[in-house]
């Protein structure tokens, strides 16, 4: 079920109508969350509910056994990790590995088709599989580390794992954050409801108005048949994609956080205006925070982080970033995206070059643009359909040719500008008080919200699925 669909509107109205009646008793409340969430997910394809259930049960029992048999902790952790990674490998990466093995054999002169022998069912990536397997896995990893006590109630566990607001595209919420919240009586104040609605409306604005309106232009730009050789066109296209993916994904996170807030729960911030970063390192503390911290806590630090020496820090960071790239999609372009970010991060670590720009305001503006430039270059690999297409696009972008004959229309420019203005607003720390007296604040908040809702309805783009669903 998509957040931006009529069926979700019906679902949400029903859910929030019943929620006040059912939230009083813990087990009833959590059972309701599980049933609603399974219905929400099963709307796409009910068969994959067995996968969530299987993955969840594995981690639920692993958690219990980790505590019960401390001498066999490693065995149960291994079971959980193998089970989760195994399902990811089977459903998300089997096609990729088969294709690459076939290509390798072809290079050696053998014609094979391993992919042809994979059952069709395994070639369909279940929506949000990367999110819920990582969330499920973090549960057993935290128990293994001793930072979390397992729940003995399977309903409690599934309420945590399958919570519909964040089930298919995050944020990846840790059990240590959410389980305790779920067990408390969720009391909501007027401020909570307002904040929840504010997040939901801003999320829909980002998704439906900015991302969905930029999507047709970006999709058209990145088809293999596109022969445009204008630098301007490609800079605009990549900028459009940068704002499309940001608004698409952060929009989803905002809606998820808003829905949780309406339920009396609190999800941590997942995107913190990443395009205002003054270093790539800072970018990764602002972009998809729940995933970055997941990789930091469960991959980078267990690998040794930067504790041994400078080289190990780089080495571990590269491994983490390459895995992070691969997590996003079963294609070499995603791995390259991770590699490009690693390269820029290494340069930053070695030369600490952003520090030279931070001293003056002008320097900070230049730095902001230089960081954006690096992020944009990486996005080319992320969005391109192949390595060669990415290289071709980058060649044209950096040729800075004067070809201004492009198919860029008013719509694209308008929605990119909206995205930029939103970010600059934050970057310069503009406040509402600079526009109107503080006493007007409450009224203006209400009017602004009503205008935003109206814009979401009347300036919505063609309804696309959220990009991150595929990951």
């Amino acid at each position, binding site marked *: 079920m998509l957040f931006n669909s009529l069926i979700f509107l019906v679902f949400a109205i029903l859910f929030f109508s019943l929620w006040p009646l059912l939230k009083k008793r813990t087990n009833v409340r959590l059972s309701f969350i599980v049933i609603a969430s399974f219905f929400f997910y099963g709307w796409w394809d009910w068969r994959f509910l067995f996968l969530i259930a299987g993955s969840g049960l594995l981690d639920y029992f692993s958690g219990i056994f980790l505590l019960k048999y401390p001498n066999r902790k490693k065995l149960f952790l291994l079971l959980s990790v193998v089970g989760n990674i195994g399902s990811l490998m089977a459903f998300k990466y089997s096609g990729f590995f088969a294709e690459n093995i076939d290509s390798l054999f072809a290079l050696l002169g053998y014609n094979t088709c391993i992919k042809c022998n994979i059952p069709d069912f395994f070639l369909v990536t279940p929506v949000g599989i990367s999110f819920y397997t990582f969330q499920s896995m973090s549960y057993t990893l935290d128990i293994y580390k001793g930072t979390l006590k397992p729940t003995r109630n399977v309903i409690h566990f599934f309420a945590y794992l399958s919570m519909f607001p964040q089930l298919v595209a995050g944020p990846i919420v840790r059990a240590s954050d959410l389980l305790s919240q779920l067990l408390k009586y969720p009391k909501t104040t007027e401020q909570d*409801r307002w904040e929840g*609605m504010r997040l939901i409306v801003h999320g829909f604005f980002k998704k439906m108005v900015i991302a969905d309106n930029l999507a047709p232009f970006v999709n058209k730009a990145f088809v293999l048949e596109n022969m445009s050789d204008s630098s301007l066109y490609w800079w605009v296209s990549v900028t459009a994609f940068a704002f499309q993916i940001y608004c698409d994904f952060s929009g989803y996170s905002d809606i998820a956080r808003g829905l949780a807030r309406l339920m009396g729960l609190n999800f941590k911030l997942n995107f913190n205006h990443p395009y205002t970063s003054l270093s790539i390192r800072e970018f990764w503390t602002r972009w998809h925070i729940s995933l970055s911290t997941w990789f930091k806590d469960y991959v980078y630090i267990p690998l040794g982080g930067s504790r041994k020496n400078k080289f190990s820090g780089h080495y571990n960071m590269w491994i983490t970033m390459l895995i992070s790239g691969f997590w996003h999609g079963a294609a070499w372009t995603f791995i390259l995206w991770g590699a490009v970010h690693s390269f820029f991060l290494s340069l930053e670590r070695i030369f600490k070059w952003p520090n030279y720009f931070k001293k003056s305001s002008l320097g900070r503006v230049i730095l902001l643009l230089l960081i954006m430039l690096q992020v944009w270059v990486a996005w080319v690999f992320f969005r391109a359909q192949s390595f060669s297409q990415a290289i071709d696009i980058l060649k044209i972008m950096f040729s800075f040719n004067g070809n201004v004959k492009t198919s860029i229309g008013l719509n694209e420019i308008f929605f990119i500008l909206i995205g930029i203005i939103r970010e600059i607003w934050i970057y310069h720390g503009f406040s509402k008080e600079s526009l109107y007296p503080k006493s007007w604040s*409450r009224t203006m908040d*209400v009017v602004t919200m*009503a205008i935003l*809702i*109206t814009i979401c309805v*009347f300036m919505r*783009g063609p309804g696309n699925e959220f990009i991150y669903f595929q990951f």
Partner: protein
Amino acid sequence: MKKERTFLALMLAVLFMIMAGLFLPKPGLVKVQRKRFWALKTYTKTKHNLIILGDSRAYRGVSPEAMHKILPGIDIFNFGFSSGRLNKFIYKQGEKRLDLNGKTKIILLAVTPNALTKHPDENAQINSQLYLPKEEIYQRIYFAPLLTFFTSVKPEDFKQKKKKVNYVEKFHDDGWVESYKIPEDTTFAMKSYRKWFTKTDVNPGMVNDLILQTKEWSNKGIKVFAYRPPSTYSMEFLEDSLANFREERLIKRFEEAGGIWIPTKSSDYHSYDGSHLRYDSAIKLSEYLAKEIKKNVDLE
């Protein structure tokens, strides 16, 4: 409740949305109306007393509403489709929509030479409608028209676009498309028809099927009427000369099979593109056809 900002914002948003829905431009509205029209035409469950079959000249050229004024008490439905052929499939589909238990059972055939030519993808339009998923049908017929109030707009929609041709279409639930073009071009359709008729002729097999079907319907007590949809004199000449359309012979066989031929004259009507009738002419033709039918049917 006064302090509940969420509630206030939602109420205010409803007000803003009503204003936006009333005053913002509605690009894509015709597309929604067109989709609804075809879905409604294909999936009509009501049985009718008079069914009109034919191609675009039928569904643009005959208004059931105008006919109804002359034929009160008769429920009329225009079941014409774009490039629709007169073939066994369409006869069956048309008959399905006829009230066979009613006292009055009439089929009105719009016989154009084009509707009697073989085409590799004949019935394409009705087929494209017949196999729509259920949700899509409901979406097209019920939800999409409701949602047109909320039609999405983009900055470019506010720019005044100077259209070279203004094609106006109004879709009626009874199957008629009221249409006209500004500016008119009475030779517009000639090129494509000339191209088509240099490749193909009226198909004798389809003519035979038409005669056999007329006999079958007449035997069942269904009154069958036919007419040649008027267009322009040049178009008629082109059709007669290139498509090998033998109108007189067809009329004779049709009448022998029990059908009633209604003669028409292109000079009495006005076509905006050389093929289709302007809405006022379509009404005129509809009234004329209804009067002719009235003469031959006992309506009491």
